């Protein structure tokens, strides 16, 4: 009985929705509410998708952006997590809080802050103009770097925390043993710390990569308007074009692309 409640919930709100996604991706669209016909079979959405190279390039661009975001996050998060794990024990809760607290200010407000910093009349241009470093405002907002900056800002804590947990679990005795056997500090890091933290680092990378591949809000607020990503394409198909089958097909394909990284992530998470 106690098992039936969560099982029923998971079936109704996780399993069925995913199956509906697949069903409606291959239904025909219709006038009305909802704008598709139940129980039909149609390849219209598939035809729309393959006609236009726009969607393929959106997928490729999304994967590239997600990859760069995850790589940047990892590059910054690894030394941060190392410093956190090595900080005196009584400071660690406060430092972890300092990494987490930005979460509680709200994602949209953080992105709004970047808009305020980066736009032409923004704070950064004001500072640069004031210092006389530039003569006229640099167009920084609505560019790929601005978008990546926002993505890294949004996802960095996702990478820091699992890495911190990994490094905290790492047995310091192993590093001492290596030092005792004659390894220099750098060699200890290269031959012991890094290989032992590698699965945690891979998990942190995927934890950023997977949601970043479907990200909609950050590119919308900070990215260049012409750079189409899957998240934006799906949003546009759904809200602007009211083409639900196409939106569903994009969702299904996004999942198909992400199945491999998702499986990999779950295997890393379930390691003993």
């Amino acid at each position, binding site marked *: 009985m106690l098992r039936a409640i969560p099982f029923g919930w998971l079936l109704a709100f996780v399993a069925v929705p995913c199956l509906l996604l697949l069903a409606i991706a291959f239904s025909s669209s219709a006038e009305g509410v909802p704008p598709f016909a139940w129980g039909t079979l149609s390849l219209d959405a598939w035809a729309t998708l393959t006609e236009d190279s726009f969607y393929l390039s959106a997928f490729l661009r999304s994967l590239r952006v997600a990859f760069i975001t995850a790589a940047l996050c990892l590059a910054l998060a690894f030394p941060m997590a190392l410093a956190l794990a090595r900080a005196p024990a009584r400071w660690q809760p406060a430092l972890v809080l300092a990494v987490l607290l930005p979460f509680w200010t709200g994602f949209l407000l953080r992105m709004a802050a970047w808009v305020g910093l980066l736009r032409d009349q923004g704070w950064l241009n004001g500072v640069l103009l004031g210092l006389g470093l530039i003569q006229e405002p640099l167009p920084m907002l609505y560019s790929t770097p601005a978008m990546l900056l926002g993505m890294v800002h949004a996802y960095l804590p996702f990478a820091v925390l699992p890495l911190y947990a990994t490094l905290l679990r790492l047995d310091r005795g192993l590093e001492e043993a290596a*030092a*005792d*056997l*004659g390894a*220099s500090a750098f*060699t200890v890091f290269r*031959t012991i710390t890094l290989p032992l933290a590698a699965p945690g680092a891979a998990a942190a990378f995927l934890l950023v990569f997977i949601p970043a591949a479907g990200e909609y809000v950050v590119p919308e607020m900070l990215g260049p308007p012409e750079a189409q990503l899957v998240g934006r394409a799906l949003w546009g198909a759904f809200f602007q074009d009211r083409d639900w089958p196409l939106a569903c097909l994009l969702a299904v394909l996004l999942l198909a692309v992400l199945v491999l990284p998702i499986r990999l992530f779950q295997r890393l998470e379930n390691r003993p």
Partner: protein
Amino acid sequence: MLLSLEGVTKRFGATLALDGLSLAVERGEFVALLGGSGSGKSTLLRLIAGFEAPDAGRVLLDGVDQDRVPPQARPCAMVFQNYALFPHLSVFDNVAYGLRREGLPGLDIAARVQQALALVGLEALAARRPHQLSGGQRQRVALVRALVKRPPLVLLDEPLGALDAALREATGQELRALQRATGAAFIMVTHDQAEALALADRVAVLEAGRLVQCAPPRDLYERPATRFVASFLGGANVLEGVMGADGLLHCAAAGCALRLATPLPAGTKAAVALRPERIALAAEGELPAENAATGVLRGVVYQGAGWLCTVALAGGQSLRVQVPADRAVPPEGVPVLLHWPATANIPLAD
């Protein structure tokens, strides 16, 4: 002198882990550091290895002050308590790790690793990962990983502590044989007195960060310097008394008079250790005038090799008495006579 510790002191916050400790270890010697938890024995080991720096005092290896010498540059190798085997490396790579840091050619490394693994009969397991080994095998890998560098000094932190009782004795003997074969000096931390007495050339007893006594096992057991050593090793009874004009030590709490090998001046207060196995227990008979007491048998515990009896003496003190297994033990609650030879009285310094 291979290792000299000179007045080493180490504080962790408010606790004094080591308190002005001095100790010297010769080449090829096997020294056991024996003490309870919190006695500072593991801290001492970490200090020699270079993982901790002393707050005062000096650590000299081969006459060279090791102040600010990092662990990787010290001529000693450590066997860690839980072995600290690298889980991502094979047995071979674990053992080769230290040699690779020395930048030896690959062929030499392979030869030395194979030779070292053969020494402990693990050559067939070279490709295994640590988690695929049994506890005893892991212990040997950890040992060989330290020995393969041929260090003059090997530090062992409770090397037998993680093994089950059946393996301990055999592994301990192996340890001793390896130490003889390599000629390295071993310093072994342990809380197990039997292990320390069985393996070491000298046993250093630590209490609250201080070295209480350091002596060969037999001396330590037969001539404990303090009441801590006496009771820590073999659970000796301690009797306290005052020297009388008759040349005997009168112990009021025990209700008996003891003859000492070297009599002290009358009126001196003294303490004496008395080993449970030196005391004879009888249900009836004549009570000698000295080195004897009467009491009531309060408890009997069977210990395989014998019976451990608790006898409440007339003066209020209780004595632990060990009776060989082939003797009959009277029922509890019965009055008994105790007596022992004068040589069993070991005078204590404090």
